[in-house]
């Protein structure tokens, strides 16, 4: 059976090795031939501190074209290396990260050549804030799917969290109450997902899609009924920035990581806790056992259904926080369909990140960065029309998924309801 499986899978894997290498080289050549050659003469300048910072760091100026050439050469080199030398798993992933960083840096150099300085701090802050709902959504998916329940309802969890957080925070005037309510709302969608998927054995893809439709319909309806008729239910209050004393004064790192709303700190905590819990604790071992081979887990006395229930609901709570961010963490007021596909992008980040919290974090950040660039670049260098720039995050994801990551292996029992024999 194993030999058969190997034979069946063989053609794809040999091709994959070349594919990744070729993608590296192509990206390197783009760095050189597109960004390097087309860059305006002059330097690209990067500011590394905010205007309000106490310690100023001098603006970094680099000649745009040569830097693009150099970064391109690094990417091509990595590609050639990948083609000739067998890489370890870690090296493969580091190489992917390296090539992407080269690409993004030369993109920045090209865009900024001869223009006003780009503020790296602002871009980084934007990247993180754009990514928060994606990261939390992907973490929710990770919790569910590692225990063997497919979660397409992330979108619905975000949306319901956003709605509930806005209405509760407005009605009670309490942001923290809103945050908790948003999380619970996500959890409620999680409960529905769990009951139908685990107890009623509903097809989980169908279920996820349907829950999204339901939540969209319900929030549209409630928005019509409650919010649009009574602005007191949608006042648009938001969390303010919460500086961490001391840490936020560190140059570069401080403003990026320690000067944001409470949501960013919750996100850090969630990433670390879930990554450690899933891969370095007995708890996580059990969860993964249930997601990979529920029968075996059941045999050694783990309660499969309980673990699935718990994880799906936990996931919903996490996604609900991400939803709350969309309203009380950023824009304040709820509008219909405010999640606008974030849940699906989080799902893509989860798959792209191979069902690990750190992988999903990387994918979400890549996406957030592209999104931020689409906002920032037209202001510095209006070479490309906005709609084309808006495509960047999606195109980047397709390239990354098709060219760099390829076939991913989900948890073995993902999507299969467990019925005790």
């Amino acid at each position, binding site marked *: 059976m194993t030999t*058969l*499986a190997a034979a*069946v899978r063989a053609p*794809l894997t040999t*091709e*994959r090795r070349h*594919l990744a290498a070729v993608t590296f080289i192509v990206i390197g050549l783009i760095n050189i031939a597109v960004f390097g050659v087309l860059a305006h003469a002059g330097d690209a300048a990067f500011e590394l501190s905010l205007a309000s910072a106490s310690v100023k760091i001098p603006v970094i100026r680099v000649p745009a074209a040569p830097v693009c050439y150099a970064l391109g050469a690094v990417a091509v080199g990595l590609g050639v290396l990948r083609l000739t030398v067998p890489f370890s798993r870690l090296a493969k992933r580091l190489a992917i990260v390296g090539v992407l960083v080269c690409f993004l840096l030369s993109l920045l150099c090209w865009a900024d050549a001869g223009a006003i300085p780009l503020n790296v701090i602002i871009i980084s802050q934007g990247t993180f804030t754009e990514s928060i709902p994606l990261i939390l959504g992907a973490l929710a998916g990770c919790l569910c799917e590692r225990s063997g329940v*497919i979660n397409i309802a992330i979108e619905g969890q975000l949306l319901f969290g956003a709605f509930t957080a806005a209405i509760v925070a407005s009605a009670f005037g309490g942001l923290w109450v809103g945050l908790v309510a948003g999380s619970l709302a996500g959890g409620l969608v999680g409960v529905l997902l769990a009951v*139908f998927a685990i*107890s*009623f*054995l*509903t*097809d*989980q*893809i*169908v*279920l996820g*899609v*349907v*829950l999204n*439709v*339901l939540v*969209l*319909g*319900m929030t*549209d*309806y409630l928005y*019509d*009924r409650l919010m649009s008729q009574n602005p007191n239910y949608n006042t648009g209050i938001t969390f303010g920035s919460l500086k961490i004393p001391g840490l936020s004064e560190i140059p570069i790192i401080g403003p990026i990581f320690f000067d944001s709303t409470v949501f960013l700190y919750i996100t850090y905590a969630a990433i670390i806790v879930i990554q450690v819990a899933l891969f370095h604790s007995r708890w996580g071992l059990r969860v993964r056992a249930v997601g990979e081979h529920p029968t075996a887990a059941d045999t050694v006395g783990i309660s499969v259904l309980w673990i699935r229930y718990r994880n799906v609901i936990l996931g919903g709570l996490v996604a609900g926080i991400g939803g709350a961010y969309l309203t009380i963490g950023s824009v304040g007021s709820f509008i219909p369909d405010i999640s606008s*596909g974030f849940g*699906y*992008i989080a*799902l*893509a980040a989860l*798959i*792209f990140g191979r069902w690990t919290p750190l992988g999903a974090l990387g994918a979400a950040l890549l996406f957030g960065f592209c999104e931020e660039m689409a906002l920032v670049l037209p202001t510095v260098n209006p070479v490309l*029309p906005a*709609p*084309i720039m*808006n*495509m960047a*995050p*999606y*195109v980047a*994801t*397709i390239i990354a*998924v*098709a*060219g760099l*990551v*390829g*076939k*991913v292996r*989900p948890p*073995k029992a*993902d*999507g*299969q309801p467990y019925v005790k024999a």
Partner: protein
Amino acid sequence: MTETPATGPDPAPASTGSAAAQPAEPAEPAEAGPTEAGQAEPGKPAGSRARLTGAVIIQAITQGSSTVITILAIFLALVVGAILIAFSDPVVTKAWSTFFSYPFYALTQTWDSVSFAYSQMFEGAIFNPSTVSAAFHGGSIAAIFYPLSSTCAQATPLILTGLSVAIAFRAGLFNIGAAGQWVGGAIVATWLGFGVSLPPVIHVIVCLIGAFVGGAVIGWFVGFLKARTGAHEVIVTIMLNYVMYDLLSYLLSHPTMLQQPHQTNEIAPFIANDANLAHVGGPPPQVGIGFLIAVAAALAVAWLLSRTTTGFQFRTVGASPSAARTAGINVERSWILVMLLAGGLAGLSAAAVIQGTNTQLTFNSYGTYGPDGITVALLGRARPIGVVLAGLLFGALHVGGTYVEAATLGQVPADIVQVLEGLIVLFVAAPALIRAVFRLRSTAGTGLEAVAKGWNG
């Protein structure tokens, strides 16, 4: 749906082993053939040689055949929807606040409110009795069919995107990208519609083919990436949706591309008159020839899936890619081909809208046809005939929802229809719940099992 009882799991898995050796197996059941009905029943003592039709019907009801489950699911969804309708009516909520003093008043008010909303929905979408009496007093006979005609018109694009999602499901792929493929078809159809001048009938056909190709290219790309690089179709289709929206926005904001001259909005020129699809029932809110195209497409897909080698390969790949590969089926080719067809069907859906009803592409034209296609395909159990029926149901709900919103002066918002749609599919997908609620005896699975496949598919 209204087919023969018990649409069990796809027959392909059971027959793969024996049929793989002889690809064009003649005895392959078409839709819900006798084999499946037989699968759902064996070993049940209650069904022991029930010869009388009456006995069969009673058995179907007590055990919950898929038809019965679907009807009960719709009923249950309407009950939940009734709560929402009652909640939206201020008269009803006020009546309930005095429930303990005047309980009957609260109940009658609720009944009035709900029955009014649902009867309005029915009159708007299916049949309005007052049109019949009007016809006797000199009114037009066509008015009697007006609601049904609008329902069919609304159903047309839903059936086509539903088929797009359904055919991919049958090959084990989840096509979330019908929306992007729709846009691809719409762009090509629009461009051919106003940018090219051709003789009348040929223009229509060229536009239709163009729309099919426009969608098919997007679908093909997804299948190609999956086959060549292993990129998961769910990610690629989601991302392509956004890429296509942005592309559409770009094209519609440049007069040299698709924008109507002297416009600041994102709007394309009207397509030429001779590129419009002929009306069957009447002008746009009513049904056009697009509906016939949708039904023909459903029949073609049904034929392809059940009567051809290619269709058999699709279903085998959908049941188990590794088994299909072992049996010598080119799995990658099937993925590419099925996504190409899925994209083409979504493109045709765009043609039905652009050439049939809207005659003009705007940025908002894509609406919710893509996501609705998923629910339609799921409700239709990924079977072409089921998709047509599900599309008609959803078309009726859309028409009825708009009608009821107007009839109640916005008191019952059309959003309620979306909730109803979600609930119907949810309940159909959870037969165990329906059985529990209505105390039906349990039998082997008759739900939506094995329609959609997870990431491992």
